[in-house]
């Protein structure tokens, strides 16, 4: 196990229906601080399950996930404290429709981090300005485009000041035109040194931004390496097939 690993995953398995469905079947990898890891693979391969296991949105059947040196699968660990440090962005944004953008952003900082309203608002507006949406602070999610919603969702996760950001196919539900604006926010984040795990079908993003690419198939990491290796010289036949179809 690597000493500077922020998240250390060992032999992670997620089974459904008493083990008849093996969504994840022994995943081992380390995610270092400041590293951008993209997870690619065919649909149903388990890449989303892997990502969702990292903050226990999915209950692993066995294995170890160490985050900051703490095994978060230990029942005694307070997972809620760890989830604050792991921002998550969903495919379908999951903004709270009954709240304004600003309320969406400040709910957790005010209720969980016990920040004052002024402090939380200031931080939220600062981040909103960075993604170019400061003028939509008082809008409701329904009034926003998909790309705007997803940028807000990213900012909502950032308002918790997380150590790592998990992205679960953040651009898959977007109109093609809007993919770019979300990816550019993610690129800025990566440049700023954020540790990121990104499940994506955007091969261009994986190639350009990530430090490491994991290819997941049948609940296992079948190939991993630097993007140039994976995309230019894939070794595994399954990776070759997959890339020939998507590139």
């Amino acid at each position: 196990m690597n000493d500077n690993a922020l998240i250390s995953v060992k032999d992670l398995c997620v089974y459904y229906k008493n083990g008849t469905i093996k969504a994840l079947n022994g995943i081992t990898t380390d995610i270092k601080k400041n590293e951008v890891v993209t997870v690619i693979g065919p649909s149903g391969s388990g890449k989303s399950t892997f990502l969702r296991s990292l903050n226990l949105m999915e209950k692993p059947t066995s294995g170890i996930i160490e985050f900051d040196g703490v095994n978060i699968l230990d029942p005694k660990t307070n997972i809620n404290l760890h989830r604050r440090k792991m921002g998550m962005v969903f495919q379908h944004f999951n903004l709270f429709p009954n709240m304004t953008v600003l309320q969406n952003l400040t709910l957790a900082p005010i209720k969980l981090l016990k920040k004052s309203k002024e402090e939380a608002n200031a931080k939220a507006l600062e981040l909103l300005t960075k993604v170019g949406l400061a003028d939509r602070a008082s809008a409701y999610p329904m009034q926003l485009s998909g790309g705007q919603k997803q940028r807000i969702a990213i900012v909502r996760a950032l308002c918790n000041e997380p150590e790592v950001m998990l992205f679960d196919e953040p651009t898959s539900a977007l109109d093609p035109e809007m993919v770019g604006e979300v990816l550019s926010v993610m690129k800025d984040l990566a440049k700023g040194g954020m540790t990121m795990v990104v499940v994506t079908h955007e091969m261009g993003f994986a190639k350009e931004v990530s430090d490491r690419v994991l290819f997941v198939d049948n609940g296992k990491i079948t190939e991993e390496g630097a993007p140039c290796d994976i995309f230019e010289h894939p070794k595994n036949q399954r990776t070759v097939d997959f890339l020939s179809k998507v590139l």
Partner: protein
Amino acid sequence: MLNSLNKFFADFADEFKLNFIDGGRWKWLLDGIVATLEITAVALIIGIVIGIIIAGVRSSFDKTKDDVKAKDPFLYALFSIANFICKLYLTVIRGTPVVVQLLICYFVIFTKIYDGLPVAMIAFGLNSGAYVAEIFRSGIMSIDAGQFEAGRSLGFNYIQTMRYVIVPQMFKVVLPTLCNEFIVLIKETSIAGYVGIMDLAKAGDLIRGRTFSAFMPLLAVAVIYLVFVVILTWLVGKLERRLRGNER
């Protein structure tokens, strides 16, 4: 022709005077209205409290039973029992007529209380609680699972997620249905006369017994119920439009 029309109005005026003016019988109707509204209001409050508790137990049992089972077997046992009691309550209340429940409350359970009014409030409250619980539960279930995940991913625990994320949205969804339950409840209280309360329906009936004319008092009672329901329906419609409005 004109003559018979004149006679009709004269008869109508006489009937009206006999049934409502003579002996101050309009006051009976007024007292009846007050009793009906009192029972409905208190029953609704009891119903909402019971509804929140039952919906809370039932939906959190469904959502968290696996986690609780793994963590604390004793808590899981308690939780299962609570869930079973809630289910039993729903089955019994929704499976028996409300008039039978009212009579059981008055003549079997609260035998020491001779005033029917508080008993009726409790009986209708217990009854409406079962329906309100299912309204709340369906509201909770109608909220997209992604909302729940979003709350949990921010670090809120189960109860906080419910409180800050799910329940405010659930309330918005169920408010019209809840108001309909209120409308149904108003009409259901018309059986309160069974336990000696002079509610609106009973007041009309008492007038009929005194004046031996059925048309006028019963029509008046029907019209008063109808007016209440029409006003409430109108208010609910207004509320619904307003709730829909502020998200767009």
